[in-house]
């Protein structure tokens, strides 16, 4: 079994997995390693980072020096292909043209999806994050707690490899001994931020990122991950030896040909394929789930993008891992008998409560970092340090004026110059040029620090997606129409971020004179910008308040499992990818049990 065509698929699948990113990759991995026969549908093309990653290419080898364009929004060398906030032939709409009321929807039509280019930041939700309503009365509690998910965070961290440390900070869980890999040394700007943050009460600790700072322990980990499963252990041990440790060069956003970081296409898919239990059809645009006479799902209908022809495959269960909004779209477009408003939508909640991460930044030149002797700061191709949310007590005491927190990521240092660079400050109102520009560019290079806030958005009734009654994509599939609104909790949080960052930069010696706008509505990144789309099929304690149960199964159709961020009942400041994988592993394990027990 391997990459197959619509004509060569089998008729004996246990599970169809729609999507191949963090959720689809993890689901296909867990299911196939434990013996289930899986068909994966991927809307994009086959993609192999081992041969397609531009590792050491410099910007002068790329058009426009690698600058971002509508074809490649994060630049020519970004790993995303056939993706972005707009995908040719695959539109979506927004209901309102009013400022701040739109959602930008990122798709990545390729094997591995968004995991190919993501920032690799891998943070666990903490205990508070699963019970937010119990703490402050806003949003929803999850029907599960941190303790339910913790064993799966452990497994995912061991499988993909995550560097970081256990710092014992509030609502920032530790991993068991021996799970995390050692973090890289801090860069000079990160050290300065740490020293000067201390006076402001802001902690700086090692980041958690899915990058191998040393090889995975292929002798010990496979047995912990697949106890009693000799075949899975052997496959994983072999695969882990095929992943090299980071060689401290090239940005992770390009992907990694030596498989030193996590992307579904290098970490989940290869061992899953090696089991012989996984088939993958690429260019397969899922349209709807089909339902049999029993009222249970019995397969998926998709369009082959190469031919425009419709195909169908059958299975005992369907795992939706298409990204939160695409999953809602598939459910809403599935209208078999008995489900006039869409599959799983008897409560009218499919598409409701979509969330993104709250984002804003502030940066400045730091004179202390100017003119430093050249040294290599490429490091692990992303953040070495970060700041977990640190004001829980102040917030609980009502001192902040907004609910829910943010963590801070930093951009510092002597990174590879790019087309987005700002190479010199100006000289008293004059555009600097000539020999003076050369000298000043040398002096300023590496001295610019940007703090970026990534905060929690509370789900609200004004942020949702539905089927646009008038618009179809080029495959004839009805598209999504978005509704969006941030609340004051988010805009005030953004104002707090920027004020904090300005104070922090000042403590580091920044001479930036302008001040952030105290009105956060001006600075908040538009909905969808941070590409942390979650919600839309949220999990809950009953069919009345949610789409999925605590095992990520649709209440209406228990053999349909949502493995992606759709099930998130809240969107903690922690980047969602690690939690998506942990929940996908957990849901897949439960599904295996149900299949084995004959309940599905």
């Amino acid at each position: 079994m391997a990459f197959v065509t619509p004509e060569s698929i089998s008729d004996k699948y246990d599970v169809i997995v729609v999507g191949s990113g963090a959720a689809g990759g993890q689901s296909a991995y867990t299911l196939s390693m434990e013996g289930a026969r899986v068909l994966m549908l991927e809307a994009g093309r086959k993609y192999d980072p081992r041969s397609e990653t531009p590792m050491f290419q410099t910007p002068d080898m790329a058009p426009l020096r690698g600058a971002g364009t509508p074809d490649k929004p994060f630049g020519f060398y970004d790993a995303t292909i056939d993706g972005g906030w707009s995908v040719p032939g695959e539109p979506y709409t927004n209901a309102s043209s009013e400022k701040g009321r739109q959602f930008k929807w990122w798709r990545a039509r390729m094997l591995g999806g968004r995991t190919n280019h993501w920032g690799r930041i891998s943070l666990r939700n903490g205990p508070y994050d699963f019970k937010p309503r119990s703490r402050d009365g806003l949003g929803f509690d999850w029907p599960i707690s941190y303790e339910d998910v913790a064993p799966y965070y452990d497994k995912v961290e061991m499988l993909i490899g995550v560097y970081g440390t256990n710092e014992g900070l509030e609502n920032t869980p530790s991993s068991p001994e021996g799970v995390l890999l050692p973090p890289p040394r801090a860069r000079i700007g990160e050290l300065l931020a740490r020293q000067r943050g201390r006076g402001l009460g802001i902690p700086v600790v090692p980041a958690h990122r899915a990058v191998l700072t040393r090889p995975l322990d292929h002798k010990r980990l496979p047995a912990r991950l697949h106890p009693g499963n000799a075949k899975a252990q052997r496959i994983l041990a072999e695969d882990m030896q095929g992943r090299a440790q980071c060689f401290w060069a090239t940005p992770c956003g390009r992907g990694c040909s030596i498989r030193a970081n996590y992307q579904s296409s290098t970490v989940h898919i290869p061992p899953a394929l090696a089991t012989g239990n996984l088939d993958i059809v690429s260019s397969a645009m899922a349209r709807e789930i089909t339902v049999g006479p029993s009222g249970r799902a019995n397969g998926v209908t998709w369009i082959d993008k190469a031919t425009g022809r419709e195909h169908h495959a059958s299975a005992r269960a369907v795992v939706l891992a298409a990204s939160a909004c695409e999953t809602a779209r598939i459910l809403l477009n599935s209208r078999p008998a008995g489900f006039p408003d869409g599959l799983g939508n008897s409560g009218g909640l499919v598409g409701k409560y979509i969330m993104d991460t709250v984002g804003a930044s502030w940066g400045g030149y730091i004179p202390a970092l100017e003119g430093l002797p050249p040294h290599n700061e490429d490091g692990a191709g992303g953040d070495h340090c970060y700041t977990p949310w640190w004001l829980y007590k102040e917030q609980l005491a009502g001192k902040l004026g907004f609910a829910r927190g943010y963590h801070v990521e930093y951009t510092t240092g002597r990174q590879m110059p790019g087309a987005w660079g700002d190479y010199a400050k100006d000289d008293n109102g004059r555009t600097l040029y000539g020999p003076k520009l050369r000298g000043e560019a040398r002096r300023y290079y590496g001295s610019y620090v940007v703090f970026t806030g990534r905060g929690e958005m509370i789900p609200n009734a004004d942020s949702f997606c539905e089927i646009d009654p008038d618009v179809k994509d080029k495959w004839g599939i009805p598209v999504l129409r978005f509704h969006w609104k941030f609340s004051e909790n988010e805009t005030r949080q953004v104002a707090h971020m920027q004020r904090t960052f300005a104070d922090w930069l000042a403590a580091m010696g920044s001479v930036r004179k302008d001040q952030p706008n105290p009105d956060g509505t001006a600075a908040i990144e538009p909905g969808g910008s941070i590409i942390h789309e979650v919600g839309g099929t949220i999990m809950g304690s009953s069919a009345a308040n949610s789409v999925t149960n605590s095992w990520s199964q649709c209440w209406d159709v228990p053999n349909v499992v949502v493995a992606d961020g759709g099930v998130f009942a809240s969107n903690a400041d922690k980047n969602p990818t690690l939690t998506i994988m942990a929940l996908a592993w957990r849901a897949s394990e439960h599904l295996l049990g149900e299949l084995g027990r004959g309940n599905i």
Partner: protein
Amino acid sequence: MDAFDTPRMDRRSAIKWIMAAGAGAALLSRGRLLGAAAQARTAKGYGTDPDVMKASKPGDYWPLTLTPAERRAAAALCDIVLPAEGAVPGALGVGVPDFLDEWVSAPYPEQASDRTLVSGGLAWVDAESRRRFGSAYADASAEQRATLAAAMSPEAADGSEMAAPSAFFRRFRDLTAIGYYTTPDGMKDLGYVGNVPLATFDGPPADVVERLGLTDEVKW
């Protein structure tokens, strides 16, 4: 949601140039300005799945569209912005004019907007050079070229006579710097020493840590 909308700025900023430039230059540049924007609209980009492993050079993905006169003016001006320094090549030595041409000829909105600014600016530079010195900018003496660059350097108030040339010069400087510092020579000059595989990552050198008084911070 589909991209590639050409910014509505084009016609308006073209008219701004016509106000800023002398009447003769305006008549010369007006038709070509709008024509160039239209040409950029019809060219194709590199698409959403280009071969990222293959090195390319300006002109490979879309035709270069600066006129010979514009190329000469651009080359002369980028040599002023980043001249060679001893053995270190300047903007001309690393092919920045090709990059500038690729940039302003690209069929994407940001670049199409820069096209208007750059073509208008180069036309103004030549016209102003002829008015002041009696020759095209590239044919003026080194001193004359420097004089004109200096005239564009100060920030100019919106609506003032020099507003458009000043905005042009700033953007031209930024593009030249991008074109220069993203090359191996430019990176070296800046002090970028990465993009090489290493066995270990040891963090900042001890002398750098000490200089910033961060010795205690290194101990996590």
